[in-house]
């Protein structure tokens, strides 16, 4: 086996040094009856690199890659162009094959990029502090709700109807253990009325902007209403690139921002691994989940970075920790940080404008198609259209023509009969004019 450096002679010499007669003797604490022969495993034997590559390449060919044709899926995962240098740099051995930076003297590379990441996330979200990432946007949102419950010592979380349904389900799974979760009704294309649900038991209101239907929300009145009742506003962002054009949640009085960072630096990867962004106000710092990197100095006075405030964390606080999280999204944060460093202020704002312009152009184009009605009035790079037929059927029909038209809302909200005809369409810089033309033409044909 090419990955195992020990030779049979090595093994014999080692057994001898240990003073046993065989490797089996080392397993003497394992009940003999629990040891099974290899034949107990209905699995193949070792294979060479060529064979494995051949097998997996064949399986991969059974799917249609997003880049293979016109493609318009979003709703929490976005296809952007990632510069080649990002993927090259994150595959450097020193980043790829290192552990959590528990020995800071030989992990300054990881610690410094984590510090840069925290700064970038704080700047993007308009918040004071950010952690070094959580698993993804949905789990970051659930952690934000739990944090709000701890801060306010109140049980109830109110979720906007525009929150991605998978996020709502994740929050319900986690937060109903310690409290109560109330979902507002979804109002596709219109602001929902979460404010009416806020009461004296409310720990937090969770509002996504742009919401799952693409609608840009004004968070300020919601923040004011929440704060008036002693509740916190949790702002959720699933398309991080939007922060290059839209007002940051921190400047709209959000108390916690939970976001999905995938769209900067990271590919679609069929849903993971992604990277959860988490930012808040300094006064809530000690209630934050997850790792934090802090600046300090070494014994010789040089600036350096360490993991800090770990007394919040499970390996120190055990059952009193703010979260059980240990592994985070290290390498995905690095991809995010490198891509954002490459973009810079100028690049990110250009990218965001470009996405918006392309989405506006496609919305205008589709609005002219008979049987298509654009229902999202204000959007970043994603909007919802009402079709004259069930959206799921239309998507399947277009997939047959090599066009991935978007996400039928019925896939996310199968219980709601009112959303059957709704389709969420996302456009990024990777969609060409020809792609948009192809979508409009195919829709016109399928809907006629």
């Amino acid at each position: 086996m090419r990955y195992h450096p020990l030779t049979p002679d090595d093994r014999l010499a080692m057994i001898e040094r240990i003073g046993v007669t065989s490797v089996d003797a080392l397993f003497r604490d394992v009940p003999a009856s629990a040891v099974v022969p290899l034949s107990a495993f209905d699995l193949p034997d070792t294979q060479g690199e060529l064979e494995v590559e051949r097998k997996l390449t064949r399986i991969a060919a059974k799917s249609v890659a997003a880049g293979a044709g016109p493609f318009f899926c979003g709703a929490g995962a976005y296809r952007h162009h990632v510069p080649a240098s990002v993927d090259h740099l994150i595959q450097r051995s020193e980043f790829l094959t290192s552990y959590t930076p528990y020995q800071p003297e030989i992990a300054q590379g990881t610690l410094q990029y984590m510090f840069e990441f925290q700064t970038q996330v704080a700047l993007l979200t308009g918040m004071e502090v950010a952690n070094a990432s959580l698993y993804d946007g949905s789990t970051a949102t659930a952690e934000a709700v739990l944090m709000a419950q701890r801060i306010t010592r109140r049980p109830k979380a109110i979720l906007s109807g525009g929150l991605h349904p998978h996020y709502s389900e994740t929050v319900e799974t986690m937060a109903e253990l310690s409290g109560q979760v109330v979902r507002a009704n979804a109002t596709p294309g219109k602001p929902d009325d979460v404010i009416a649900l806020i009461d004296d038991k409310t720990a937090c209101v969770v509002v996504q902007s742009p919401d799952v239907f693409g609608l840009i929300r004004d968070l300020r009145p919601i923040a004011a209403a929440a704060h008036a009742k002693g509740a916190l506003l949790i702002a959720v962002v699933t398309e991080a690139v939007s922060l290059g054009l839209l007002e940051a949640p921190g400047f709209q009085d959000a108390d916690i921002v939970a976001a999905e960072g995938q769209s900067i630096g990271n590919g679609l990867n069929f849903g993971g691994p992604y990277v959860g962004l988490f930012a808040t106000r300094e006064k809530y710092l000690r209630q934050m989940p997850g790792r934090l990197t802090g600046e300090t100095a070494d014994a010789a006075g040089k600036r350096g970075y360490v993991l800090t405030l770990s007394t919040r964390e499970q390996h120190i606080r055990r059952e009193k920790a703010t979260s059980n999280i240990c592994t985070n999204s290290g390498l995905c944060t690095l991809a995010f940080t490198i891509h954002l460093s490459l973009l810079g202020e100028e690049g990110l704002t250009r990218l965001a404008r470009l996405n918006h312009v392309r989405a506006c152009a496609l919305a205008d184009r589709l609005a002219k198609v008979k049987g298509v009605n654009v229902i999202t009035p204000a959007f970043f790079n994603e909007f919802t259209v009402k079709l004259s037929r069930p959206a799921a059927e239309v998507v399947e029909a277009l997939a047959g023509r090599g066009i991935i038209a978007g996400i039928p809302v019925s896939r996310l909200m199968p219980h709601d009969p009112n959303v059957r005809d709704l389709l969420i369409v996302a456009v990024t810089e990777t969609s060409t004019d020809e792609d948009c033309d192809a979508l409009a033409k195919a829709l016109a044909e399928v809907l006629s």
Partner: protein
Amino acid sequence: MTMNNQGRPSAPGTIDNHELATISGDRGLDHEEPLIFEIGRDGMTGVDLPNVQIADTRLGGMRRRQPIGLPGLSEPEVVRHYVRLSRMNYAIDAGLYPLGSCTMKHNPRLNEKMARLPGFGDLHPMAPQSTVQGALEVISELMKWLTTLTGMPAVAMSPKAGAHGELCGLLTIRAAIAARGETRRRILVPESAHGTNPATAAFAGFTIDEVKGTADGRVDMIELEGKLGPDVAAIMLTNPNTCGLFERDIRHMADATHKAGAYFYCDGANFNAIAGRVRPGDLGIDAMHINLHKTFSTPHGGGGPGAGPVVLSEALAPFAPLPLLVHDDRGFRLIEDRDELPAGARPFGRMSAFHGQMGMFVRALAYMLSHGRDGVRQASEDAVLSANYILASLKDVMSAPFGDGPCMHEALFDDSFLEGTGITTLDFAKAMIDEGYHPMTMYFPLVVHGAMLIEPTESESKESLDRFIHVLRELALEATARNTARFDGAPHYAPRRRLDETAAARKPVLRWRQKDLPQAAE
């Protein structure tokens, strides 16, 4: 010197630096590197994009009003910056990385290549299911490997890391207990457990009852049985445990647990010791997470991403979270909603958006296909053999609290051999850095004073192990001879000397700020 109750020094001390200072501040290949925010300039970018202008009419009045504050850099500057940062990191690719409990084994690059195939990497999680059949096949194949290797009937694939898998397992148990019409609030956790175990149990709404260990480093069965009762939901056991030992009484433990109406959760962090030889399902386990980033070699990436699928027994399988994967004559299909559940399924909820860590699934499957069942078994045998080789070669000069018998895939030492020398476990670990090694896991498990937990994995040659043993022996001999020069203030040859963690926590600086601007008022 101030220390905590594990004997760990809590301040870095000070040193005199008599070395010749260079003009640049760099030293040969060791470059100092400022923060990215300190090297950029306005207007520059490393990505060429058209400068389109927009009307504000469709932004709902929510256009960003002030600049973000990001620096502008060209591509070569960004590449150099991150290459220079990378050179301040230790890595498995560069040397032995004996972090106990972390399984820092070789990360084959084939796996990286496979995960980047467009048919896996460039797939949207909500693309029509007819267009993602290959991805679903990978998940299905990996499920087969995981259930076969563990001898368990079902597996939940969506948890994103070990601790997330623990949570998934406990929520499954909670749902199973609720379905029986019972309420059970207590979870038994051995004192040697990973910190994630009690943290997860608390997170899932349980109270934690700690079970003491025996003098031979195992769970005290008498205490465990005494604590079992009608309010116990589960026990959480790591096996092999964090002392590097197999819990001999595991079947007895499982029987007692089941007799009390509770479930048996196993922390699978140490599965690398027994994979291909022992099936946890045969031991009476009801749920176990598998850290794909440990046993199945997906890269640790500086702290993630991981993946933590949870295998489940027949009793718990119906309660696995959404989504579920089914295979019928129409092909593979994800069930994402309660409306179309197969008979008997009663999912407790959803762990996260979408369907799990696909990128990690491809890598883990490539690892498994490369190894085969025989290679998986060889890997665990070599991991155990190498750990025992280290234990046998060092226990006369270091102190091994459970060194009388064999260990599993990691060898545990304590600091009693350092007693009276003034040298701590931390000093010893930092001296290893000067010798070119990443230190072992230190001060864990908590049940041993000044713990040093060494996990070499199966990826080291005998020559590499011999060299490591030689260095540790010499260090131990110098320490016990009270030659403290190598230990005082170590490391000497790393990119940084010891860092002041106390100061970092006392006055946290968690982000860069432009120095000459007034800071935002709270």
